[in-house]
């Protein structure tokens, strides 16, 4: 047993898991407030990371400015996407909505690959030191930043939904759209805002992963990894999304350890979350924290 490696992998797992949690949270946000399952969540990460990369490399902006501009771009992008494409789909059957977001996802993915190419592009170095040593463990500075930012986002989410007027409106809409509308809440605005917030939060995750691993089309796969996390936590629970993300992140890295030490299968790391997903769907489809949907005849 290589304890040092195991510990390192588990720390990595927690950090990656928090990122999964953040993306899953933005996925759940859209699902909860607009009842749309966003299969294009991974493309939000992709677009955010590439836009930030382009700002830094092509326009030579400093990181903080490029980052803020990226977030502003994603905010507008989310609103426009909701207004132009998703608004006509309100009230359509779930299959149509799922297919619509899948169509969007391949459209954006191909478009982004066309504009920026297929190759991994390294991010210009943002921090003076690549990694920091904490108690003998190597932790990437960008991951540490992402960890802090993720925690800030989570606290921000909590405060936003708990104390702000708009947050209250969003919770009301998630609870019952018609009642919310009859109380004077602009449901369309809530929907647009949900997409905008989701796009911004995903872009933060996309940029952080981009800083560590370089930017490439592979980022959009995170959008698919989010499904196990969101389902494990319960599709309509924001806390669940974070917990689910953490569990999947740690599990993935643990699988990598087991695979590397004993099994030598190769791809277990990538495929295990999907086995977990199937098992959860079989025994507890509403996840750990989701609302149990009971149907009575």
């Amino acid at each position: 047993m290589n304890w040092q490696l195991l510990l390192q992998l588990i720390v990595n797992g927690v950090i990656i898991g928090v990122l999964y949690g953040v993306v899953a949270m933005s996925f759940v946000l859209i699902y909860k407030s607009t009842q749309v399952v966003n299969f294009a969540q991974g493309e939000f990460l992709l677009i955010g990371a590439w836009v930030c990369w382009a700002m830094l490399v092509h326009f030579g902006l400093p990181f903080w400015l490029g980052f803020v501009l990226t977030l502003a771009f994603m905010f507008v992008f989310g609103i426009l996407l909701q207004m132009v494409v998703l608004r006509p789909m309100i009230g359509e059957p779930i299959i149509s909505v799922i297919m619509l977001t899948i169509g969007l996802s391949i459209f954006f993915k191909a478009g982004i690959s066309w504009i920026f190419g297929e190759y991994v592009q390294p991010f210009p170095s943002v921090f003076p030191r690549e990694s920091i040593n904490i108690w003998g463990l190597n932790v990437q500075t960008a991951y540490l930043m992402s960890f802090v930012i993720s925690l800030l986002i989570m606290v921000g989410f909590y405060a936003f939904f708990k104390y702000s007027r708009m947050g209250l409106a969003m919770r009301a809409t998630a609870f019952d759209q018609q009642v919310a509308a009859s109380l004077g809440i602009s449901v369309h605005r809530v929907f647009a805002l949900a997409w905008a917030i989701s796009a911004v939060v995903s872009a933060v995750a996309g940029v952080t992963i981009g800083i560590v691993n370089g930017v490439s089309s592979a980022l959009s796969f995170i959008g698919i990894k989010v499904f196990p996390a969101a389902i494990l936590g319960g599709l309509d629970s924001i806390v669940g999304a974070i917990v689910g993300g953490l569990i999947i992140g740690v599990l993935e890295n643990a699988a990598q350890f087991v695979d590397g030490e004993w099994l030598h299968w190769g791809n277990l790391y990538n495929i295990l979350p999907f086995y977990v997903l199937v098992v959860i769907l079989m025994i507890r489809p509403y996840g750990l924290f989701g609302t149990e949907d009971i149907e009575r005849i």
Partner: protein
Amino acid sequence: MSLTADSMRCGEFRTTYKADTTIFPTPRSRNFAIAGLIVLLFAPHVLDTYYTNLLIQIGYYGIAALGLNILVGFSGQISLGHSAFFGFGAFASAWISNNFGVPVILAIPLAGLMTTAVGMIVGIPAARIKGLYLAIATLAAQFILEDFFNRADWFSGGSAGSVAQPLNLFGFVFATDKSYFYVVLFFMVVMYLAGSNLLRSRDGRAFVAVRDHYLSAEIMGINLTKYRILAFGVSSFYAGIGGALFGHYLGFVSAEGFTILLSIQFLAMIIIGGLGSVMGTLLGTVFIVLLPEVMEALMTTLGSQLPGLERGVSYLKEMAIGLAIVLFLIFEPDGLAHRWKQIKAYWKLYPFSY
């Protein structure tokens, strides 16, 4: 029967249940289908290899897409893993014919049956979950099966892929496009007739009942679990047959071809064609198979003026598929079949459209 009374009807004139459950809605549509079939019989002798190849593609994709439409359009479930079943059929047929000395013509239906078994296993969660959860479960199945293709050397040849022998019937080898076209056409006609026939049977009506309101269906005595899993079985049987035909046509099967993108293309076929329409499935398949070809031709003509386009052809093809899905869902959610009906109604009622 007189021609005028049958051909230009503009309403429901059927008076018996028997007349309501024919495979073709009117005798005229049946005659058109037969005429179309006869035209197709001569097609490979008239068209060159490029067009014959496109027709063959339409054939095997069309069979698999019909399976998906039975699952999605008729029984109201969803599958994001159809290309994995398609691939399983291709590998299974190659595996059976290579390892057990079974002639290819028998290996194809056997592969269909094996895929049915796999599809039913994947469909088991469908007994409990539906809609979105089912979509995600089948997505997981897609990745797990893809991983299996890459890993199982004994079955699929692993990452190297496996060789599929050409179809051989009484010493005649269907190795050319021209001859293989007839094989695909045969399977296509059989599968489409079987599909249309299924939908007018007791089981087909049960599928539609489950789709329209599963609680009412259950109250009326339809076994939900049975029909949900059965729909997965039928759907994967079609995918398996389509995949097997694909494998023996190319002569070589490798895991790279059966990604989530192909699953999405299958879904695009049935959405563009029209959910719950057999003819729509065919129209949608034609659309999705021809779309990249048309894009390609368009880009080569435009490419001489705009040099950047040539490089982006493959991306533009994918973008076109994504865009087609989005535009159809927003502007024509019932697909090409609905549009076709409207065109027919327009001519039937012309000039008194009200």
